């Protein structure tokens, strides 16, 4: 049970988010490969033009879609019929080749293909639309290449006219980049930090309720030793959890580590230290174990969404980014990601590290006296 919540739950969450994100599209006009995160989506083709060119292009669309595993294409007699299918949820998009399509092209005019997508699902809708465009771009470019060749013979490279400047990416790291590569360090940081936060809160409240805290408090030891003991124990547990999650992500999702495990360890210890004080503060405030747990949960849930764990923080509106950047989790995840993916040195992540150290001091300065006071109120 415990294992499930501490290890399997983050992994489950990570796998869901990892698969939800469409990977970076690897379309390449030169090789004609488009690539998709959602293979074989059902779409309908409505052909309102029966000209030779229209038929040819429709056939090319079907062929490319099926070859590349983008869509399974069915043909519909009318737009209304296709629309009914889309409303029923049987198809995800409609491609319409309108009347006059062939005539326009034969007359040397650009022609338009119309698209309707299932707008109840924005993610699928945008994927379907962009992939349909990509397929027609592909068809279109081979047509232009042909046209240029017809006009100019072999004197010019058609690519020079169609796309005089192109962009290619030099990979920052060798190997495959995937959503998991982004998610795994974040989840590691999340698990370690929230795990120890909750662990400390729970452990202290449990001892209070159980009565053993009295045994510790009545012994001639300073209160900060009690706190530090709890923190140390929960940090070790958090670290084991974090590395287990990293290990599982390597095995299950092919996540690769390029950086030093020692620096990773330093970042994780600092990440924990930066936030564990908050757990102590909550324990000091909360009257019982349940309330303490509730409070940590309320804190940790939004933190998961706005600290750049599940998606990059840049996707958030400005004010939310500020809140996200106020969370130590953001810096721990950021540093960990740089170390794991980019093999960053300790110097390279120094700003993150310094912020985490400042957080540690701030929270601990508040937490220790507060704990002291709460224990003998």
């Amino acid at each position, binding site marked *: 049970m415990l294992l499930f919540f501490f290890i399997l739950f983050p992994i489950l969450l990570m796998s869901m988010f990892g698969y939800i994100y469409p990977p970076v599209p690897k379309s390449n006009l030169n090789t004609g490969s488009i690539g998709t995160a959602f293979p074989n989506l059902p779409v309908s083709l409505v052909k309102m033009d029966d000209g030779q060119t229209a038929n040819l292009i429709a056939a090319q669309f079907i062929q490319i879609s099926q070859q590349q595993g983008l869509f399974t294409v069915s043909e519909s007699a009318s737009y209304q019929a296709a629309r009914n299918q889309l409303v029923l949820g049987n198809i995800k998009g409609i491609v319409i080749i309108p009347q006059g399509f062939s005539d326009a092209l034969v007359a040397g005019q650009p022609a338009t293909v119309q698209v309707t997508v299932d707008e109840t699902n924005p993610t699928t809708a945008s994927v379907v639309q962009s992939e349909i465009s990509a397929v027609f771009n592909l068809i279109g470019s081979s047509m232009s290449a042909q046209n240029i060749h017809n006009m100019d013979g072999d004197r010019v490279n058609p690519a020079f006219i169609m796309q005089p400047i192109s962009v290619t990416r030099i990979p920052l790291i060798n190997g495959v980049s995937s959503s998991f590569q982004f998610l795994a360090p974040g989840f590691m940081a999340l698990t370690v930090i929230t795990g120890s936060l909750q662990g400390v809160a729970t452990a202290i409240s449990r001892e*209070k309720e*159980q*009565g*053993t*805290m*009295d*045994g*510790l*408090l*009545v*012994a*001639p*030891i*300073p209160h900060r030793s009690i706190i530090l003991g709890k923190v140390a124990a929960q940090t070790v547990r958090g670290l084991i959890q974090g590395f287990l999650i990293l290990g599982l992500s390597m095995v299950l999702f092919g996540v690769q580590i390029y950086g030093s495990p020692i620096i990773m360890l330093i970042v994780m210890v600092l990440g924990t230290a930066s936030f564990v004080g908050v757990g102590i503060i909550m324990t000091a405030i909360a*009257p*019982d174990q349940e309330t303490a747990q509730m409070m940590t949960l309320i804190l940790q849930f939004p933190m998961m969404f706005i600290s750049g764990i599940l998606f990059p923080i840049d996707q958030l509106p400005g004010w939310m980014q500020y809140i996200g950047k106020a969370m130590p989790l953001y810096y721990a995840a950021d540093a960990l990601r740089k170390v794991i993916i980019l093999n960053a040195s300790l110097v390279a992540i120094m700003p993150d590290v310094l912020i985490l150290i400042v957080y540690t001091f701030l929270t601990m300065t508040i937490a220790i006296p507060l704990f002291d006071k*709460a*224990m*003998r*109120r």
Partner: protein
Amino acid sequence: MTLQRTELAPLSEYAIETHGLTKKFGSFTAVDHVDLAVRRGEIYGFLGPNGAGKTTAIRMLCTLLSPTSGSASVDGYDIVKQGNDVRKKIGLVSEKMIMYPRLTALENLMFFGRLYRIERNALRKKSEELLEMVKLTPFKDKLVGGFSSGMRQRVNVIRAILHDPDILFLDEPTTGLDPQSTRFVRDLVKGLKQRGHTIVLTTHIMEEADELSDRVCIIDHGKIMAVDTPQALKDKYNTSSLLEVFLGLTGRELRDSANERISMRAPMGRM
């Protein structure tokens, strides 16, 4: 570090002294200007209905709660200013057992003993002796979680005396125990007195207080109602039972409401 008693408080005949000791939780006064004087080596029965302020007073003396006003010294040390010195001198058996159910009897003793910086080998020897004294040697390596309440309380009591505290606070040590264990614990308390410990004992069982205490202090609504030997109190009120004395002083009405008041107004006080 050697222990230095303060100039102000030389080794007196009193192990515990309080002057106007008061604890308020919000507007509720749990302990109201209490003056106590517990003599060295005596068993001091601390009696009162639920919510009378016994536990609050004991928790202040153990440095687990800070007093609102007044002062108190335990073995000559001020409970506010010299908390750490006080803690070295006292042992506590509180209402809740101070023991980790997931550790064995011996592990519990070793853990708590180490908090007093008792050297490991000496501690093990001492723990085993004490376990033998309470007849738990065969169970020393068993998890405390599986113990009966009587067995647990025996471990709990010896845990409190591992470091040979001068003063021992026993808060209802026989509550919830079967007659055999009750007898055993009472004899244990007498034995501890023989070993020279000063004992502050709270109990709701008047015959227990009568049997064990050298003197009893009856407290109600945070105030002291009477302090004397059980015999003197019985003589004074012309009865043969301490229970009659107690009921005469504290009344016969039930005290559920007072108890509720404490838990409502002072949720933090009982940590």
